[in-house]
C-alpha cells in the first residue's frame, strides 16, 4: 500500500517536473504556428485552429530587407563569432591548460586568476573595449566580437581542459620523454590524440557560451554586418513589435542550434559541469 502511494507520488512529481520544463517551450511553439486572432481570443483557445508554418519559411528564406534576412544574417554572425571565439580559445587555451596541468604547484594561483576573469561582469570591460575597437575601426565586425568573446570563453576552456588533462596520467608524458619525444612531439603524438574528446567538448561548450552572449554584442555591433542572434531576438521582441508568432518562431529557431548541441553533448556536458564543480 505504502509502496503504491510512493510510486504515485514519484510519477506525479516526475510529470510535474517534465511539464514545468516543457510547457513554456511548447507554448512558444504553439504561438509560432498560431495566427494573431487565435492568440488574442478570449477565453484562450489553447490549440490553434490551423497550424501555420509560414513564419518558419519566412525566417529561413533569404530575401533582401526581410525578417528572413535579419534572422539568417544574425545566424551567420552568431556562428562566425561563436566559432571564432571557440577556435581561438582552443588554440591559446590548450597550451595554457597543458602547462597548468603539468606544473600545478607553481601555476595554480594563475589558474585561479584566469578563472576569476570569467566571472568579471562584462560591464567592467565594455568601455575600454568599445573605445579601443572604435579607435581601430573594428566595431561592428563578427571577428572582433569573436576576440572579445574570448574573455568569456577562454577561461572556461582552460578550466575545462586543465581538469581533463589532470586525469591523463603524467607517466604517459614521461613515457614519451623516455621514448625520446620532445615537448612538441609529446603533445602532438600523445597528449593531443588522447584529449580529442575533451577538446571537442570544450569547443562546443565555448560555442554554447558565445551563443548566449548578449551584452558585448548589444554594444559592439550596430547592424546586420555583425549583429548576433541574441540581439536580433531582443530587437524582435522589443517594445513596439507585435507579431508575436514571428517573435516566437525566431526564438525557437535561434534556440535550436544550442539545444541541439547540448543534447548531442549531454553526457560530457553533465560530466564537465559536475567535474568542474567537484574539482575546480
Amino acid at each position, binding site marked *: 500500500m505504502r509502496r503504491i502511494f510512493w510510486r504515485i507520488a514519484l510519477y506525479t512529481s516526475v510529470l510535474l517536473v517534465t511539464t514545468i520544463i516543457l510547457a513554456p517551450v511548447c507554448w512558444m511553439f504553439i504561438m509560432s504556428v498560431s495566427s*494573431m486572432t487565435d492568440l*488574442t481570443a478570449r477565453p484562450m483557445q489553447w490549440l490553434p485552429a490551423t497550424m501555420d508554418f509560414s513564419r*518558419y519559411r519566412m525566417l*529561413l*528564406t*533569404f530575401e*533582401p*530587407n526581410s525578417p*528572413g*534576412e535579419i534572422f*539568417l*544574417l544574425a*545566424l*551567420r554572425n552568431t*556562428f562566425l563569432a561563436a566559432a571564432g571565439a571557440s577556435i581561438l580559445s582552443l588554440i591559446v587555451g590548450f597550451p595554457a591548460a597543458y602547462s597548468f596541468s603539468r606544473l600545478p604547484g607553481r601555476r595554480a594561483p594563475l589558474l585561479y586568476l584566469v578563472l576569476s576573469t570569467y566571472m568579471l561582469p562584462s560591464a567592467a570591460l565594455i568601455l575600454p573595449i*568599445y*573605445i579601443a575597437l*572604435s579607435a581601430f*575601426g573594428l*566595431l*561592428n*565586425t563578427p571577428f572582433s566580437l569573436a576576440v572579445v568573446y574570448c574573455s568569456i570563453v577562454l577561461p572556461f576552456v582552460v578550466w575545462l581542459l586543465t581538469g581533463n588533462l589532470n586525469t591523463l596520467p603524467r607517466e604517459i608524458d614521461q613515457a614519451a620523454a623516455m621514448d625520446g619525444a620532445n615537448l612538441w612531439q609529446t603533445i602532438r603524438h600523445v597528449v593531443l590524440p588522447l584529449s580529442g574528446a575533451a577538446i571537442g567538448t570544450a569547443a562546443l561548450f565555448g560555442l554554447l557560451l558565445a551563443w548566449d552572449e548578449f551584452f558585448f554584442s548589444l*554594444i559592439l555591433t*550596430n*547592424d*546586420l*554586418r555583425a549583429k548576433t542572434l541574441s540581439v536580433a531576438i531582443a*530587437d524582435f521582441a*522589443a*517594445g*513596439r*513589435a*507585435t507579431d508575436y508568432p514571428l517573435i516566437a518562431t525566431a526564438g525557437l*529557431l535561434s534556440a*535550436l542550434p544550442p539545444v*541541439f548541441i547540448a543534447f548531442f553533448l549531454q553526457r560530457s556536458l553533465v560530466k564537465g559541469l559536475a567535474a568542474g564543480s567537484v574539482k575546480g
Partner: protein
Amino acid sequence: MKRILGALSIAAVMAASTVVQAQDIVLQALFMKQTAYSDKDVRDMTNDFEAAHPGIKVNLEFVPYEALHNKIVASISAGSGGYDVALVDTIWPAEFATNQFVDDLTSLVPPRDPIFGGAWKTGEYDGKIWAMPWILDTKYLFYNKDILAKAGFDHPPATLDELTQQAKVIKDKGLADYPIVWSWGQAEALVCDYALLVQAFGGQFYDESGEPAFTKGGALKALQFMVGSIKDGISNPRSTEFLEEEVRNTFSSGRAAFALNWTYMWPLANDPKQSEVAGKIGIVPAPGTPEGSPQAAINGSMGLSIMRNSDKKDAAWQYIKYLTSQETQDKYASMSLPIWKSSYADPKVVKGQEELIKAAETSVAIMYNRPTKVQYQEISTLLQQQIQSALLGLQSPEQAMKDLASQTSGMK
C-alpha cells in the same frame, strides 16, 4: 530537414553579401520599427530611390524606438563603419548637435515656407537645422463609435472632464472594463502622453527662469489626472506596461473605448485584417481643459540626419531629399501625414482619411514640444521613473514631482 534548409540559406546569405558591385556607393541607414511608416513602406520607398539613383544602394536597419538613441550613439565611434543616415527623434537634436554627432543641414534644406513650422521644430537647435523633418506626427484621441453610441453619447469628448465622465458611464454600463488605454510603460511614450496632458492643463516643464516647474500648475495636475484615472478604474491599469503597439492592439480588439496614439493607428485600426473595430472608430484632437489649452497635441515628429562621420554625405543627402520629397510623402500619406502644407489640399492625399486630416489641421498647429535639453535623455529617464512611481502608487504625485524637480535641477 529544417537544418538543411537553414544551412542552404546561410550559404545563400554568404553569396548574397557579395552581390553588391564595387563601384556602388552603399549607404547605411537606421530606422525604427513600427509607428509612422512601416518597415515595408520604408523598403518600398528605398527600392524606388535605388531605381531612380543607379550607383547608390541603401542598407536598411530597423531597431525598436527604445534602442534607436543608443544605437546612434554607439555607432558614432564606429568611424566609417557607422551609419550614414539615421532617423532622429525631435528630442535629440540638442544633444546630437552639442556633441557633434550629426551634420548641420541648414544650408541644404529646402525653403521653410511650404513646410509646417511644427515640423521644422523637429530638427532645430540653436537656430540651425540638424535633421530634415520627415515624419510629422502627433497623438490624437481615437474613440470607438459603437461603444459611445451604446453608452448614449453622440459626440466624442471635447474636454478631459468630459472624457472622464463618458468613460465612467461606459465602465458603469459594463461596455468596457477599462474604457481608456494609454502607453504608460517606462519609456519615452509615457513622457509623450504626460507632455500632452501638461499642455492640456496649461502647464510647462520649465518656468521662465529655466527652473523645473514640475511641482506646480499644469505639470502637477497632469500627473494627478493620470493617477486619478487609474484609481477610478477608467484607465486600463495594464497601461503601465504598454507601449504604442499594446495600445493599438487593445483598442483594435474592441476592449477600449478611447485610446491616445499616433497617426499610424488610424489606417491600421481601420484595417479589417488587423482590427475588429474597423470602420467603427473616430479620431479627434486630444481634448484639453478650459483653464489650459482647449485641445492638446504632442510633437512626435522625427527627422533624418546625416551622421558626422559619414563619408558619403552627398549620397546621404540625396536619399534624405528623396524620402522627404512631397511626391514620396504624398504617396505614403496614409501611414504618416506629409510635412508639406499644400499636400493637405491634394484630394489624393485627403481621400479616405478626411477625418484624420480634419483632426490634424487642429493638432499640427498646436503641437507641444518637449524641452530642448542637451541632457534630455537623463531628464526623461528620471521623469519616466517618477511618473511611474506615482502611477503605481509608490508615492504621491506631489512627492514624485518634488523629487523630480530636485533631481533635474541644474541639468543642461
